[in-house]
C-alpha cells in the first residue's frame, strides 16, 4: 500500500513541479520520503535488470548510445533522460514512466549516474551490469581527489552482480577488475596506434603515454578513426561504421556502448541491427551539437576538464574555422580555473581565437597569452560576444568550446539571434 501511495503522490508532485517549471528531483524526494523501498521494488521487477554507467567523461552520450542500441534490439528501455543523474532524479524519472499502480513498463533500465551518487544508488539497487568509462580530474573542488572518485567507482564494480565492462586503457579503471565479484569482467579498448590521442592525467606533462604493459583482451577495440569513419574490432573481426558523432572521444564512447550492449544481449545480439543503431546515434542534448547558423556549420563543443578539452582540441582541426571559447565558473562548471593551465592550446596558435567570453574570459585569455595564441576580443558578456562571433566573417564555419552553463546560455541565445538548424 505504501508503494501505491508513494507513486500517486509522487506523480502528482511531478505534474505540479512541471507546471511550476521546477526541478526534476523534487517529486523523487517526496516519493523517497514516503517509501524508501520505492526504487528497489520498482526497478527490481525489470526482467533484464539495471545497468549503471559512470565515469568522469562521456556518461551522457554513452548512456544515450546504449539506450538506442538496446532499443534497436527490440528492448523497452527505461533511462533517466532528464540529466538527473542522482538517486532522486532516478526516482523522479521512474515516477514519470510508471503506471499509477507503480509498475514500470520496461525490460531494462539504463542509468547514467554521477560517481558519488552512484554509491548511494547501488546500495539501494544492485546493478546487473555496469560500465565504467574513465576517471579523470574533474571538479576536484567537489570530490577532492582522483583516488576518491576511483573509490566510488570501485563500489559500483563491487555491487554489480552479472558483468562489469571496463576501459582497459585507463589504469585506474582497469585496476578495478580485482574488486569485481560479478560473473564476468569485459573490456573495451584502443588499438595501439590510437593511444597517443588519449593521454591520461598521469602522463599529462611527461609526454609519453604509459609503457605498453600487458593489457587484457578487449571485446571491442576502436582500431581506426578518421572523421566519421571508424573501424571497431569486435571479437577479433573488423567492422566498419560511418557515424553521426564526431570527435575521437565520442567514437571511443561508442566502442564502450557496443561492448556493454553485447554483454547485455549475449548470444541474442543482432549484429547488423547493432551497427545500424550505432551509426544513427547523435550526441546527447547539452553535450555538443552541430548546428547550421546562417547557412554555416557551427559546432558547440562542451569542455569541462583538462583531458576532455585536450581531446576536443585534438579531434577538431582549427584551420578554416572561426573559434570562440566561453568559460564560466558557476557551480555546475566547477569554480577552480586551474584546469585551464593543464590544457595545451598550441593547436589554436596558427588560427587564433576570435572571441573569448564567459565569466572567466580573462583567465582564459591570460592562459592563451602565455601559450602565444592570438586573441581577437575578450568580453565577459556572452550575448555580445556571440553576436560578434557569428556576424563577423559570416561565410566561415565556426566552433565554440564552452563549459556547461556557458553552453546552455549560448544555445538559448543562438535560438533568439538566428535561424538555427540542428544537424546532430
Amino acid at each position, binding site marked *: 500500500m505504501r508503494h501505491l501511495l508513494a507513486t500517486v503522490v509522487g506523480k502528482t508532485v511531478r505534474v505540479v513541479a512541471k507546471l511550476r517549471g521546477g526541478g526534476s528531483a523534487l517529486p523523487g524526494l517526496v516519493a523517497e520520503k514516503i517509501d524508501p523501498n520505492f526504487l528497489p521494488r520498482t526497478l527490481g521487477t525489470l526482467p533484464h535488470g539495471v545497468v549503471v554507467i559512470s565515469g568522469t567523461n562521456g556518461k551522457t552520450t554513452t548512456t544515450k548510445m546504449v539506450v538506442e542500441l538496446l532499443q534497436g534490439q527490440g528492448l523497452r528501455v527505461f533511462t533517466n533522460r532528464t540529466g538527473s543523474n542522482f538517486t532522486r532524479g532516478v526516482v523522479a524519472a521512474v515516477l514519470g514512466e510508471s503506471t499509477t499502480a507503480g509498475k514500470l513498463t520496461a525490460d531494462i533500465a539504463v542509468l547514467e549516474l554521477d560517481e558519488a551518487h552512484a554509491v548511494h544508488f547501488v546500495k539501494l539497487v544492485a546493478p546487473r551490469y555496469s560500465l565504467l568509462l574513465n576517471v579523470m580530474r574533474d571538479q*576536484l573542488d567537489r570530490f577532492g581527489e582522483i583516488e576518491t572518485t576511483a573509490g566510488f567507482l570501485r563500489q559500483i564494480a563491487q555491487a554489480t552482480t552479472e558483468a562489469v565492462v571496463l576501459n582497459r586503457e585507463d589504469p585506474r579503471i582497469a585496476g578495478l577488475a580485482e574488486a569485481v565479484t560479478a560473473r564476468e569482467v569485459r573490456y573495451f579498448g584502443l588499438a595501439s596506434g590510437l593511444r597517443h590521442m588519449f593521454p591520461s592525467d598521469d602522463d599529462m*606533462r611527461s609526454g609519453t603515454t604509459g609503457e605498453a604493459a600487458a593489457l587484457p583482451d578487449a571485446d571491442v577495440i576502436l582500431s581506426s578513426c578518421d572523421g566519421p569513419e571508424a573501424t571497431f574490432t569486435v571479437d577479433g573481426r573488423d567492422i566498419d561504421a560511418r557515424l553521426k558523432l564526431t570527435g575521437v572521444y565520442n567514437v571511443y564512447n561508442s566502442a564502450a556502448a557496443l561492448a556493454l550492449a553485447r554483454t547485455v544481449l549475449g548470444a541474442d545480439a543482432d549484429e547488423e541491427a547493432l551497427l545500424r543503431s550505432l551509426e544513427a546515434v547523435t550526441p546527447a542534448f547539452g553535450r555538443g551539437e552541430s548546428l547550421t547558423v546562417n547557412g554555416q556549420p557551427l559546432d558547440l563543443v562542451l569542455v569541462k576538464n583538462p583531458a576532455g578539452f585536450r581531446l576536443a582540441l585534438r579531434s577538431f582541426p582549427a584551420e578554416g574555422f572561426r573559434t570562440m571559447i566561453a568559460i564560466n565558473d558557476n557551480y555546475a562548471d566547477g569554480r*577552480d580555473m586551474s584546469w585551464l593551465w593543464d590544457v595545451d592550446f598550441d593547436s589554436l596558435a596558427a588560427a587564433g581565437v576570435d572571441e573569448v567570453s564567459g565569466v572567466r574570459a580573462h*583567465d582564459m585569455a*591570460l592562459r592563451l597569452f*602565455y601559450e602565444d595564441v592570438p586573441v581577437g576580443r575578450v568580453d565577459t558578456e556572452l550575448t555580445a560576444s556571440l553576436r560578434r562571433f557569428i556576424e563577423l566573417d559570416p561565410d566561415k564555419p565556426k566552433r565554440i568550446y564552452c563549459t556547461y552553463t556557458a553552453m546552455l546560455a549560448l544555445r538559448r541565445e543562438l535560438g533568439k539571434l538566428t535561424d538555427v538548424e540542428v544537424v546532430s
Partner: protein
Amino acid sequence: MDAPVIDLLQLYPRDMNIYGDWGNVLVLRKRLQLRGYDVRLHEYNPGDEFPGQVDLIVGGGGQDSGQNKIQADLHALGGRLKELADDGVPMLAICGLYQLFGNFFKTHTGDVIKGIGLLNVDTVGGPTRMIGNTVLDSSEFGTVIGYENHSGQTFLKEGVQPFGTVTKGEGNNGQDGTEGARYRNVVASYLHGSLLPKNPAVADFLVRHAALRRHGSFNDVRLDVPYEAEARESSAARPR
C-alpha cells in the same frame, strides 16, 4: 652576445603536477624570455640525475599516490635542496610539495610521513577539505589571488614567515589566518589557480632572484601582460 641563461627546474612533473602547476612553469619561462633570458627547462622525476646548475625550482601538488611515488627520492634529494635554499635559490612549492618541504605530515589515521625539513612547518591531516577561491594580503606582494584545495592543516614554526594573511578563505590551517610560508627566497603556498599567472609580483620576485644569483644583475623591464589585471579582479570577486 648570447642571451644570459637561466636553468629552471620542475620538480616531479610526472607525479606532482595537478591543478595547473604547469602554468607556474610557463609563466616563469615567459617572463624571463620577455626580458631577454634564455631559459633551459629541466624536468626532474624520481631516479633522474639532478642537474649541476639550477637557478630556479618549481614544484606542485599531487594525488596521494603521486606523493607516495616521489617520497623516497625526495628524501634522498632533501639535503641538496636545503643547501640550494640556504644559498638563495628561489623556489616555489605548491600544496603537496609545500607539505613535504616541511618537517612532517601526520595523517588523521596517525601515520607520519616525513618531510625534508627545508621549511620549519608541521602539517596534520584535517577532518574537512578547505576548498575555494582565496585572497591574501601579503606585505611583500600585495594582494595575492588563488584557489585552495587541501585537507592538511599546516602550522608555521620558528624562523618561517607566512606568505600572506587570508582575507578570503581558510589558509594554512583555518585557524590562525596565515597562508603559505616564506623562507629565504622560497615561497610555499596552498594556492593554485595557477598561482603565478594572476600574481606577477610573486613570479617576478622569483625570476629576479634567479637572475641576480646567477648573473649578478636583473634586466628589470616592466611587463605589460594583457588581461592580467582583469583576471585578478574577476577572480577576487567570485564566490568561494
